């Protein structure tokens, strides 16, 4: 068990200014044991969806099924779920032990000794045995987080729901807990829905990510699918840091070119046939742009764009270079050891294989990057690391 079916889920809030649709007819299937991340900007409906799955919100229309059981109108306690909240929501007047034991005490008939055993086991998994007799007020944020996770795993639920559980931790602890959470989830094999506004968490943690905006589903896919094959311009801009660069262009179907006030890029014949609009947006990820100061010797001079370097941000491993293209800013990441001087002029190369094209009006993706997204390409990379 642990398969979730969401069918046409709609959640409407009534406000004095009329109803607000927080989630609009969302269809989604989560497989057993999967780690699914809901991601999107504030107010996109990700938390509302999670709370509908939890039973903390009533559903306006649509249905939710756990395996074959409809739970749409069930109370939270009848859904066999555990949840981790952003502020942990530990009971302040109870010790860590009582916090973890509370769910078992409320929802099972276990004896005190059995409950204590299970609490100890969960505490060992979370490495908080020494903290069991402390109250939440005496614990640090990271420790409270561990207690909150302990409270969730002790229940041995069919489904974990996590609502931005790491966002109150400092950056270092967050990175550490991210890995730990993934390990924990793999170990337990419990279907997990994880809500975050942080695309890095989504990319690094999810088996699949669900991207939402304005209460509507934008894309469901593996992190690499969403990264390299974004369904639309919103997904392309949301996933990835620094974000994808966008340049508005007009397609000239007769000449087979993409025209921008300061440059022209060639357009392949096959693409020309696919276009049904001429208002397009070129998208290119910062790491897919290469820079050159000798355009004359470049193998693809017709895909070069002349730019001014405005700012450089050396990060150590990479350097973010900000370029000016006709008043618009383009971000490019280059190797950390490459020297780029602000104020200079460079040509940037936009490779056809890595370029994205979107319909300017609908945002729909017309062309994707051809970067590989299946994991079969990974073993090569691994062996490469070993030999290096």
């Amino acid at each position, binding site marked *: 068990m642990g398969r979730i079916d969401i069918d046409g889920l709609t959640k409407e809030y009534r406000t004095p200014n009329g109803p607000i649709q927080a989630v609009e007819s969302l269809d989604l299937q989560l497989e057993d044991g999967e780690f699914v991340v809901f991601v999107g900007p504030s107010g996109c409906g990700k938390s509302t969806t999670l709370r509908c799955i939890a039973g903390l919100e009533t559903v306006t229309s649509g249905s939710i099924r756990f395996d074959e059981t409809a739970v749409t109108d069930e109370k939270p*306690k009848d859904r066999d779920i555990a949840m981790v909240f952003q502020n942990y929501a530990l*009971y302040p007047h109870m010790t860590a032990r009582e916090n973890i034991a509370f769910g078992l005490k409320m929802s099972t008939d276990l004896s005190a000794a059995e409950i204590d055993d299970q609490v100890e086991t969960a505490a060992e998994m979370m490495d908080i045995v020494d903290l069991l007799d402390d109250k939440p007020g005496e614990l640090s944020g990271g420790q409270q987080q561990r207690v909150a996770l302990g409270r969730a795993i002790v229940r041995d639920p069919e489904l974990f729901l996590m609502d931005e559980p790491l966002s109150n931790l400092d950056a270092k602890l967050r990175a550490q807990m991210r890995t730990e959470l993934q390990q924990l989830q793999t170990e337990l094999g419990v279907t997990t829905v994880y809500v975050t506004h942080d695309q890095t968490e989504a990319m690094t943690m999810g088996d699949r990510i669900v991207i939402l905006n304005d209460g509507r589903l934008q894309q469901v896919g593996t992190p690499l699918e969403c990264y390299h094959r974004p369904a639309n311009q919103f997904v392309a801009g949301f996933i990835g840091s620094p974000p994808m660069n966008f340049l508005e262009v007009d397609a000239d179907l007769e000449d087979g070119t993409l025209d921008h006030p300061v440059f022209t890029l060639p357009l392949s014949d096959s693409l020309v046939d696919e276009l049904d609009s001429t208002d397009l947006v070129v998208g290119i990820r910062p790491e897919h742009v290469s820079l050159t100061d000798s355009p004359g010797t470049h193998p693809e001079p017709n895909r070069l764009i002349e730019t001014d370097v405005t700012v450089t941000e050396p990060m150590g491993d990479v350097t973010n270079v900000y370029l000016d293209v006709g008043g618009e800013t383009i971000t490019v990441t280059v190797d950390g050891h490459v020297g780029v001087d602000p104020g200079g002029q460079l040509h940037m190369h936009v490779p056809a294989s890595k370029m994205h094209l979107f319909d300017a009006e609908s945002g729909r993706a017309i062309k994707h990057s051809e970067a590989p997204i299946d994991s079969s390409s990974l073993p090569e990379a691994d062996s490469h690391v070993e030999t290096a």
Partner: protein
Amino acid sequence: MARVFTRLHERVSDGGLGRYLPLYSRLDEKHQYAYKLLFPALAMMFVVHFIPVVWGATISVMGVNSNYIADWTSAPFVGLEHYAFVMDPTTTIGSRYWYSISRTVLWSVGVLVGTYVLGLTAALILNQGFKGSFLVRTLLLLPWIAPAIVTLNVWRMMFLSESGIINHALMSVGLLDEPVFWLLGDRALWSMTIAHVWLQFPWVMIMLYAGLQSIPQQLYEAAAIDGAGRWGKFRYVTLPQLKPVSGVVVLLMLLWTMIDFTTPYVMFGGSPPSSVEVTMVYIYNFSFRAFAFGRGAAMSVGLFVVAMVLATIYYRRFIRSDFEEDDQ
């Protein structure tokens, strides 16, 4: 008035205070400023509370009676004689004093239970946030805002055996066969408790309501997911979360009722049935009708000590631990 404050401020600022108060001059500027702001309130407290307490304690060891009304300072010093007299349970006066204390405690506990249960119920209902709860909240506060003398007189009239609406109502629905004397005998304590609960529960309600509003909603959500039903949430989230505010409410309600004079005096006047002759009324009669000021003062100090002992036990047992936990 403004000039007085300016001059006062100058005097306080030029180190004048520091000369007389070495502790004060040792404080840093921020704390000195805080004390300057507190000064008017402290001065008021000094005049209204501190002086009468010391005065009362002084009179309790002096033979002040009707002979010394013109100049109490000329009364002889009698040591603890008054205390020995009023607290001797073998005398009529002493046994009535102790009886009045027991009635006071009984009444206070009754009021405490009544106000807490009614106040909590009302607060829980208000906290549901239904439409019009604002209006209901205001209406429920009325008994507390309305002048006590009006409310209490209305209650007294309602409790009257012949013309009172309570007997009338109970008889018309068949719960009573004949009128009951609500204001006589032991029943008087019930009547006085009911009237006082009515007067005081809005305050308890508003305190607990504020406490309820400060409970994070997420705790209820966590409890719902942990499998707690309505009762479980109330028992394991609401009540423990209300503990700090409840501690203060219970302590103040207990003390305020013990020293309340208005309710018994307005309802029963100077000659109440013995079941409602609480210590405050007894002291009043003793001091201001028999003019035995010295003995009355000794009784007051006695009541003060009883109240302090109860408050201290309660504070140690229920309140201090909460704040200590918070400090950690």
